[in-house]
C-alpha cells in the first residue's frame, strides 16, 4: 500500500498479454579442451582435486555408517549422513568464483558445499588471514589440537586439514567440531569461510538466506548470498513465499537505494530428481523443468536457467554471469542445477523408488569419472597424476578420520563434568544498544515526525496529578509505550529495520508505528507480503548476520503460518552454533480480540514451550516500554506479545506513570501491581484488568485482600517474588486469556506446587479461557476469564466466600472432570 503507486483501472483493463522469455537449459557446450584457454591448468587440476576431497569425505562417512570401518579405522556414529555422492561437480563449480564476502546457506545434504566453499576460500585468503582465523576460532581450540598431531606443509595445507577435521568432528558430535558438535551433520557451517548455517528442515534455509541478502542490501555490504536448496523444497510454502519476497516490486519501485532488482541472492536448486524418494519431475511436482518456476515469480523471470551440474565448468560459467548480474543489483536469480545422488537419501535408503538401470546410467556420467577422463583427454595432466592425487586424498582422509574418531584426540563434550554446556548457549544474554556504528538513515529529521510531538504532549499516567482519570486520547497508552523505544532505537542503531504486514503507511494494523513513515526510509521500514514464514525466516537471517530487526505478525493466530521459522529457526541457531551466532530479533505478535476463532488466540504457551525463545507479554505501558527497551538492547530472540484489548490502556499502577527517559525492565522479572496478604493472583496479558476488578470486589465485599502479580515475562521467569507472595498468602489463582489446557499458567502452577507445597493452603488454581473456539465478541463473557470466574475459582477451590453465589459452575471438580473427559 502506497499512494505513490497509482492503481489505474484504465491501464489495468487494457487488453494485453504476458510475454515470457525463453529459459536457457544446459547452454554451456565447451569441452575441457575447448575451455582450456579460460583456465590455467593448475586451476583445472585444483577443481578436480577439490572434487576428490568431497568424494573421499562422503565415501568415508558412508563406510563409517554402513560398515563401522574406514581404511582400518573403526568407529561408529549414530547421527544422520545425507550424502551427495555424485553431486560434487556442482558444489565445486559453485564455490569456484565465490569471493570471501560471498556466503552460502545449505540444507541437510550440504557436506560438499561446505567443503568446496571452504577450499575455495582457503585458495583466496592469504596466509596471515588464514592463520588469524584458525588462531581465533573458538580461541584456537581446533588449531591447538591439530598442532599436537599434524605437521602441515604450509598454511593452506593446515587450513584444509582444519576444515576437514573441524567438519568431521562436528558431524561426529565431538567437542572439536566447528560448533562443539552441537549442530551436527545437517547444521554444520563455518562463518569465517562464508559457510553459513545449513538446515535440516527442507527449504528452511531459503527465508534465512533471503534475510541475509536483505542485510547485505540494507546495510550496503559487499557480496552475494547463495541459497542451496533441493528440488524437493520447491513444494514448501516458505520457499515459494521467499522467492516472491526477495523479488518484491518495491525493491526497484520504492526503495531509496535505487537498484534495478531485488535482493542479492542466488537460489541454487540442486535438482537431483528426488525429494527423498518422491520423484519431483513427473510425480510430486507440477513443473516439468524446475527452472520454469522463475518465470512465474517476477517479470525478469528471476534470470532463471537450467545448468548441467555434472560439469564443473558449466556451473562456473553460469556463476560467472549470474554473479555479475546480482552484483549490479539484478537479483534474485533462480538456478536449476541438474545433478543426481548416486547414494540413497540417507544410508538407510533401500532405493525402492528407482531402478538399477537408472542408477547405472547416472553412474556412467559420474563427474568424478567423467571430468577426470576429460582432463586426461585434454592432456591437462596424466591419469597417473590423478591416481597419485587420489592416493593422497585417501591418505589424508584416513588420517583425519583417525583423529576425529579417536576420543583421546577428539573427546566428546563432557556433560558429567560440565552440565551447563548447552544451557550457556541457549541465550546469548548480550547487551548491545547498537550493532554497528554510523549514522542511521532517515528521510528527514527524525524529531520532525508528527507522532513524536503527539506522544510528547501526552500525560504519562492514566491519572493526572490530582488522581483524576485522564481522557484516553490524552494519555500515553501501550501503543505509544511501544513506539517510544522502537523509534529511539531507530535513531540509535543504524542496522535496525522493521517490517511486517501493513507496517508502513498504515503504521501497523494497530497503529503502533503510525507516523514513522514520515521520516523512516523504505529500506528500514517496509510492508512485507502476506508471507509470515518469509517475514520471520528472513528476520532470522537478518539477525544472524548481525543486524537488529523487529518483525511483526499482525495476529498471534498467524504463528501457525510461521511455525518452522519461529520454532525451529529463530529459537535454535544460537545454541546450534554453540553461541557463535547471535539472534537480535524481536518478533512482535498481536493477540486479537473481537474477531472470532482465528483472530483471538493467545499462543504464548506454544512459544514458551520451545527452548531458545524469550517470551514477554506486557500488560501496562510501563511494562511495554521497559520490556521493549530491554528486548531491543539485547542479542536474543524475543517474542513480544501484545494484546489488542489494551493498546489504549494508560499506566494505572506505576506511581508517576511511564518515565520519559529510556529504562529497561529485566526480562524475567514480575510486576506486583497490588499488595495484599490473603490471596495471590498471577496474571498474564489483558486478564490483569479482570483480576484488578476481582480484587476490588474481594476487598469491598469479602474483606479479602488480593496481591496481584503480573507475569509480563514468561521466559525467562524469576519465581522469587511469586514464591514470596505465596509464602505470605498460601493461596494462588492464575489467570490468562489463553485456553486453559496446556497454557503457560499451568506450568507456573505446577512449579509453585512443587516449590512451595508446604506453604500452600490450597491448590494453585488455573483460570484460563474455555477449550473451545473463540466465539464472536458478543459471547466474550462465556469464553474468556472474567472477574466473576476468578471469584468463583477462589470460592470453589481456595476460600469459600461468605454468602457468595458462584456464577459459572466451571470450577467444580465434577465439571472439571467432565470437560477433561469430553476433551473440552
Amino acid at each position, binding site marked *: 500500500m502506497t499512494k505513490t503507486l497509482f492503481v489505474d483501472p484504465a491501464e489495468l483493463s487494457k487488453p494485453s498479454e504476458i510475454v515470457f522469455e525463453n529459459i536457457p537449459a544446459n547452454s554451456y557446450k565447451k569441452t575441457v579442451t575447448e575451455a582450456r584457454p579460460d583456465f590455467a591448468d593448475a586451476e583445472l587440476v585444483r577443481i578436480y582435486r577439490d572434487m576428490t576431497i568431497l568424494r573421499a569425505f562422503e565415501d568415508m562417512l558412508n563406510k563409517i555408517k554402513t560398515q563401522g570401518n574406514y581404511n582400518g579405522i573403526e568407529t561408529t556414529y549414530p547421527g544422520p549422513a545425507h550424502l551427495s555422492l555424485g553431486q560434487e561437480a556442482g558444489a565445486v563449480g559453485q564455490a569456484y568464483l565465490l569471493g570471501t564476502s560471498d556466503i552460502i546457506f545449505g540444507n541437510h545434504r550440504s557436506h560438499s558445499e561446505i567443503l568446496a566453499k571452504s577450499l575455495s576460500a582457503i585458495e583466496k585468503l592469504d596466509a596471515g588471514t588464514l592463520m588469524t582465523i584458525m588462531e581465533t576460532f573458538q580461541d584456537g581450540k581446533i588449531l591447538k589440537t591439530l598442532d599436537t598431531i599434524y605437521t602441515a606443509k604450509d598454511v593452506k595445507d593446515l587450513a584444509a586439514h582444519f576444515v576437514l577435521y573441524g567438519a568431521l568432528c562436528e558431524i561426529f558430535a565431538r567437542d572439536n567440531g566447528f560448533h562443539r558438535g552441537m549442530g551436527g551433520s545437517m547444521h554444520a557451517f563455518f562463518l569465517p569461510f562464508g559457510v553459513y548455517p545449513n538446515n535440516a528442515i527442507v527449504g528452511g534455509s531459503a527465508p534465512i538466506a533471503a534475510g541475509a541478502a536483505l542485510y547485505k542490501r540494507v546495510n550496503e555490504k559487499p557480496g552475494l548470498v547463495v541459497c542451496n536448496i533441493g528440488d524437493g523444497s520447491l513444494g514448501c510454502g516458505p520457499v515459494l513465499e521467499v522467492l516472491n519476497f526477495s523479488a518484491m516490486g518495491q525493491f526497484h519501485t520504492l526503495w531509496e537505494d535505487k537498484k534495478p532488482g531485488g535482493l542479492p541472492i542466488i537460489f541454487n536448486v540442486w535438482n537431483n530428481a528426488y525429494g527423498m524418494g518422491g520423484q519431483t519431475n513427473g510425480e510430486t511436482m507440477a513443473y516439468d523443468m524446475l527452472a520454469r518456476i522463475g518465470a512465474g515469480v517476477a517479470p525478469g523471470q528471476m534470470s532463471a536457467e537450467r545448468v548441467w551440474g555434472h560439469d564443473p565448468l558449466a556451473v562456473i560459467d553460469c556463476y560467472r554471469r549470474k554473479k555479475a548480474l546480482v552484483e549490479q543489483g539484478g537479483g534474485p536469480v533462480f538456478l536449476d542445477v541438474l545433478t543426481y545422488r548416486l547414494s540413497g537419501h540417507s544410508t538407510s535408503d533401500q532405493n525402492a523408488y528407482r531402478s538399477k538401470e537408472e542408477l547405472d546410467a547416472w553412474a556412467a556420467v559420474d563427474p568424478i569419472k567423467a571430468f577426470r577422463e576429460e582432463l586426461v583427454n585434454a592432456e591437462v595432466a596424466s591419469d597417473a597424476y590423478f591416481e597419485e592425487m587420489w592416493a593422497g586424498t585417501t591418505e589424508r582422509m584416513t588420517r583425519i578420520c583417525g583423529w576425529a574418531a579417536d576420543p583421546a584426540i577428539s573427546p566428546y563434550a563432557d556433560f558429567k563434568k560440565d552440565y551447563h554446556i548447552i544451557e550457556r548457549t541457549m541465550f546469548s544474554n548480550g547487551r548491545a544498544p547498537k550493532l554497528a556504528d554510523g549514522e542511521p538513515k532517515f528521510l528527514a529529521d527524525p524529531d520532525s515526525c508528527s507522532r513524536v510531538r503527539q506522544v510528547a504532549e501526552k500525560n504519562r499516567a492514566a491519572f493526572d496529578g490530582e488522581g483524576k482519570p485522564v481522557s484516553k486520547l490524552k494519555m500515553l497508552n501501550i501503543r505509544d509505550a511501544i513506539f517510544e523505544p522502537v523509534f529511539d532505537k531507530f535513531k540509535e542503531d543504524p542496522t535496525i529495520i522493521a517490517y511486517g504486514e501493513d507496517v508502513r503507511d498504515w503504521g501497523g494494523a494497530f497503529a503502533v508505528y503510525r507516523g514513522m513513515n514520515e521520516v523512516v526510509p523504505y529500506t528500514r521500514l517496509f510492508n512485507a507480503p502476506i508471507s509470515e514464514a518469509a517475514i520471520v525466516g528472513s528476520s532470522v537471517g537478518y539477525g544472524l548476520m548481525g543486524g537488529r530487526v523487529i518483525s511483526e505478525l499482525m495476529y498471534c493466530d498467524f504463528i501457525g503460518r510461521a511455525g518452522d521459522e519461529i520454532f525451529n529457526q529463530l529459537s535454535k541457531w544460537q545454541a546450534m552454533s554453540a553461541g557463535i551466532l547471535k539472534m537480535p530479533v524481536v518478533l512482535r505478535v498481536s493477540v486479537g480480540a473481537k474477531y472470532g476463532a482465528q483472530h483471538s488466540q493467545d499462543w504464548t504457551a506454544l512459544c514458551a514451550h520451545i527452548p531458545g525463545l524469550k517470551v514477554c507479554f506486557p500488560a501496562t505501558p510501563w511494562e511495554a516500554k521497559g520490556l521493549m527497551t530491554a528486548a531491543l538492547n539485547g542479542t536474543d530472540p524475543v517474542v513480544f506479545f501484545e494484546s489488542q484489548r489494551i493498546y489504549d490502556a494508560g499506566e494505572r499502577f506505576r506511581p508517576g506513570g511511564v518515565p520519559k527517559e529510556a529504562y529497561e525492565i529485566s526480562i524475567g522479572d514480575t510486576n506486583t501491581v497490588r499488595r495484599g496478604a490473603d490471596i495471590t493472583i498471577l496474571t498474564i496479558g489483558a486478564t490483569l484488568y479482570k483480576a484488578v476488578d476481582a480484587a476490588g470486589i474481594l476487598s469491598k465485599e469479602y474483606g479479602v485482600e488480593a496481591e496481584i502479580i503480573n507475569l509480563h515475562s514468561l521466559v525467562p521467569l524469576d519465581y522469587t517474588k511469586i514464591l514470596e507472595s505465596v509464602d505470605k498468602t498460601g493461596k494462588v489463582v492464575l489467570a490468562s486469556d489463553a485456553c486453559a489446557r496446556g497454557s503457560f499458567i499451568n506450568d507456573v502452577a505446577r512449579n509453585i506446587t512443587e516449590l512451595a507445597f*508446604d506453604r500452600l*493452603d490450597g491448590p494453585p488454581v488455573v483460570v484460563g479461557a474455555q477449550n473451545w473456539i473463540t466465539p464472536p465478541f458478543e459471547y466474550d463473557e462465556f469464553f474468556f476469564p472474567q472477574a466473576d470466574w476468578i471469584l468463583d475459582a477462589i470460592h470453589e477451590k*481456595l476460600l469459600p466466600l461468605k454468602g457468595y453465589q458462584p456464577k459459572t459452575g466451571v470450577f467444580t471438580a465434577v465439571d472439571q472432570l467432565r470437560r477433561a473427559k469430553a476433551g473440552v
Partner: protein
Amino acid sequence: MAREVIMPKEGITVESCLIGKWHKELGDAVAEYEALFDYETDKAAFECVSTAAGVLLHKYYEDGDEAPVLAPVAIIGEAGEDISALIAGGGQTTAAPAAESGIQAAGEQAAAAHGGDTQALKASPRARGDAALQGVDLLQTAPSGPGGRILEADVIAASAAVYEAEAETQGADGNPPENRLPEPPRNDGTAAGARNAAAAPEYIDEPFTKIRSVIAKSMTASLQRSAQLTHHHSFDATMLLAMRGDFKTSDEAYGYRGVSVGDIILYVVSRALANHPEINALVSADGMRKYNTVNLGVAVDTPRGLMVPTVFAAEKKSLRGISAEVRLLAAAAREGRISPDKLTGGTFTVSNLGATGVESFTPIINPPQVAILGVCGVTGRVRKGRGGRPDAYSSIGISLTYDHRAIDGAPASRFAAELCGALEDFSWKTLALEN
C-alpha cells in the same frame, strides 16, 4: 417400659468394641448414668453408663465378647417385665444420644468432615505444617475450606481455642492461682497500717510489658510442655582465647578484629549442628522436624527484655559473616527496630552469659526447638599435666538443655562432647578450611 442400652460409637472408624467387665448382674437395680460395663477399642478403654433407670433384665454380651457399635448391649426395665418381643426384634428403641459438650461437638463435626482419620483428613500442606508446630490436633479442627479442607486459618483458630481453654483453667491473667501475687495489705486503720501508708512504700507493682508477658508465657509453656534437662560440659579454651587475641591485633583489613569469643562459639556451633540434625530440630507432640540448615537463634539482652534474633543458614556463613550479622541483629534488637521476621524461624538457640561470669546454668528451651546451648564464663582450672604435675588452664563451660521427648541423653552428650572438641581445636586452620 423396657429400654435397650446400645454400644456407643467411639469415633467414625470404630466398628466394634470388646466388653471388658460388667459392673451389674441380671436383676440388679440400675440408675440412669450408673456405670454398667467397661469396654475398649483398639486404642482406649471406656465405661458405658446406663441410659435408662430400672433393673438389668438382659445382657446381649458377656465379659470378653465383641459387640458391634450402636448394637443393643443390655435391656433395662421393670422387674418381671416381658422382654421377649424386644429380644426377638433385636431392639426397637435406642438410647437417646448423650448430650455432648460444645468442644466435643466441634470435634465430632471435625471428625465427621474427614472420616476421623488423619490419612483421609483434608488439610492444606500449610495447615498441616502449622498444626505440627503448634501442637494442634487436626482431627479436632473444624474445617472452613472447600470440600471440608482444613485451612491455615482453621489451625490458627484451633490453636487460639486451646490457649483460651488453658487460660480459663489458669485464671484470667494466665497464671494458676498459686502464681498470683498476694493482695496488698489494706490500710485497715490500725497503727501499723497507718505507718505503712505514711512510710516509703515497701514495693512497687509494675505490670509486665508486652515483651515480658510474651517471655513469661513462652518460658512457662516451655517448661510445662516439654521434658527438659541440662548437661554441663567444659572445654579447654586456651587455643580459642589465643585466637581471639590474634584477631584483636590482626590487620584491620582482614576484618577479624571485631570477632568475639561468642562469635567464634556461634560459628563452631553452626558447623557442629550441621552434623546433628536431631539437635538442630523442632519438636511437637508427635514428631520432630530435623533441619538441614542451621537457623541459629542468638539470645540478646535488651532494655525491653530477652530477644532472640535469628542468623539464618548460619552453617553457610563465614565467621566474619556471622560476627557482623550478630552485631547488626543485636543492635537492631536493642534499639527496638528489629524486623519481626528475624525473631522467628530459629532451629537452635545459643544463650551466652559468659560476660557475667556465670559458671553454669540451665537455659530454658525456646519452643518448639529441641535444644538450647548456654555459654558460661572463662574460669581457671587445673588438671593433671605431664608427669602428673598440675597444669592450670582456661576453661569455658557450656550448658546444653535439651528436650528428652525428642532425644536421649547419650546423643545430647555426644553432641556436647563433639562441640567441645571442635571448640578446643578452633584455629586458623579451621578458618583456612572455610575459604
